[in-house]
């Protein structure tokens, strides 16, 4: 019986030719709708014309802003550091710990012989290299201002800053008395205040998650943390890229600033 049947895949089979024909028509119509008709209905000049409409709908990269007012330059210097995961890859980019230790002699009077001190300066021992490097570069470019730090970084080369960052990142962290781990975690640190647009501190700075460029805050002096949070909140400090930290600090209440500073300061 099968021998009498026409071949299945052949245009002499009316079922085959009808279904393939219908699908082809539908395909051509849909392609016309997606690549020509609907793009042309947009009022962008870049969608006008057959070729433009097809290429734009297919995703050809282009410049989609027509004439625009020129960009407004910043009033004060902003951070010019480019943070990428591979920024310390390579022998020289990674920095030399030994050379950094020699350069660090100029830092010891405030930051301690091994990166830890009681002078209300930030503890640098075990800090992320990217964070140290970014702040040093920002002090150099005056994106971050400090009467104390500005003269210290004059004349240091990019390699010097990388070496210093590598050295301090390699030092062991101050263990403290372990009391921080024992105290209850304030709400602002653990869950933030989502209703007021404040992400938890820990989502960038802590044990929960870290973000490139955001410093480790464990066991930093309370006065330092509080003054920096307030400086971010009032705009006095503005070297955070695209206002990342100012957006957070501005929405924090004084109680939240106190609670988070005390938590990260441990018992210092």
């Amino acid at each position: 019986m099968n021998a009498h049947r026409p071949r299945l895949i052949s245009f002499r089979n009316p079922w085959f030719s009808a279904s393939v024909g219908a699908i082809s028509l539908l395909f051509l119509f849909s392609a016309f709708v997606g690549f020509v008709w609907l793009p042309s209905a947009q009022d962008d000049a870049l969608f006008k014309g057959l070729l433009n409409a097809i290429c734009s709908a297919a995703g050809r990269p282009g410049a989609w802003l027509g004439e625009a007012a020129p960009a407004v330059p910043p009033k004060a210097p902003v951070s010019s550091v480019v943070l990428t995961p591979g920024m310390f890859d390579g022998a020289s980019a990674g920095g030399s710990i030994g050379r950094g230790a020699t350069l660090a002699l100029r830092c010891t009077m405030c930051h301690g012989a091994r990166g830890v001190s009681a002078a209300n300066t930030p503890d640098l021992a075990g800090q992320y290299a990217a964070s140290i490097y970014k702040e040093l570069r920002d002090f150099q470019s005056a994106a971050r201002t400090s009467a104390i730090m500005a003269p210290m970084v004059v004349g240091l080369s990019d390699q010097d800053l990388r070496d210093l960052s590598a050295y301090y990142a390699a030092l062991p962290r101050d263990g403290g008395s372990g009391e921080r781990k024992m105290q209850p975690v304030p709400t602002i640190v653990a869950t933030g205040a989502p209703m007021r647009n404040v992400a938890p501190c820990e989502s960038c700075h802590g044990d929960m998650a870290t973000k490139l460029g955001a410093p480790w805050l464990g066991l930093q002096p309370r006065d330092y943390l509080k003054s920096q949070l307030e400086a971010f909140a009032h705009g006095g400090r503005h070297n955070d890229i695209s206002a990342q930290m100012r957006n957070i600090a501005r929405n924090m209440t004084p109680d939240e600033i106190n609670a988070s500073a005390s938590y990260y300061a441990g018992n210092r």
Partner: protein
Amino acid sequence: MAQTFSANSHDTAALTARIEKRWAFLMVGIISLLVAVVIFTSLHWAMMPPSRVETINPSTLHLSGEFVESNLGSAVEPDGSITVRVVGQQYSFTPQCIVVPSKTLITFRVTSADVIHGMLITGTNINSMVEPGYISTFKTEFKQPGDHLMPCHEYCGVGHEAMWANVKVVDKDVFSKMALNTRRLTCDF
């Protein structure tokens, strides 16, 4: 049973052919309906998937170009339209409070400095991915003044739930007065 089946094989073939024909018409009908829905929503609701592809280096947004911090916010263009530039990054939008006039053509230019975010303006059909490396451009017009929320609606990390911004649509005249004092408007602070 097999006997009965083979005896009526001609009827069965005709029945099968009829069912298949109906099925084919139904399928073509469903597909046509879907295409028609796409056409209608695209033309009348502007629900078109954005195909304005434009690339940018996400790690150097802050160094130069239109996404430097001082250029973010609403800009009045020479033709009277408004361009709003926004950067999304873990875990906030900058500016956090966007101010735009009503009854004016608004062009949004949004990009991300780190991971994939989303932006959605409640009460409008604005809903877009914000991807690192790409600039999302879309145009809209707000009919009347009012406040809208703009949450990030793509999970972007552990602080995702705290990432949102405000969109304040103000009267055209109020906006013009605000625009006299500054070149880039936001309602932060």
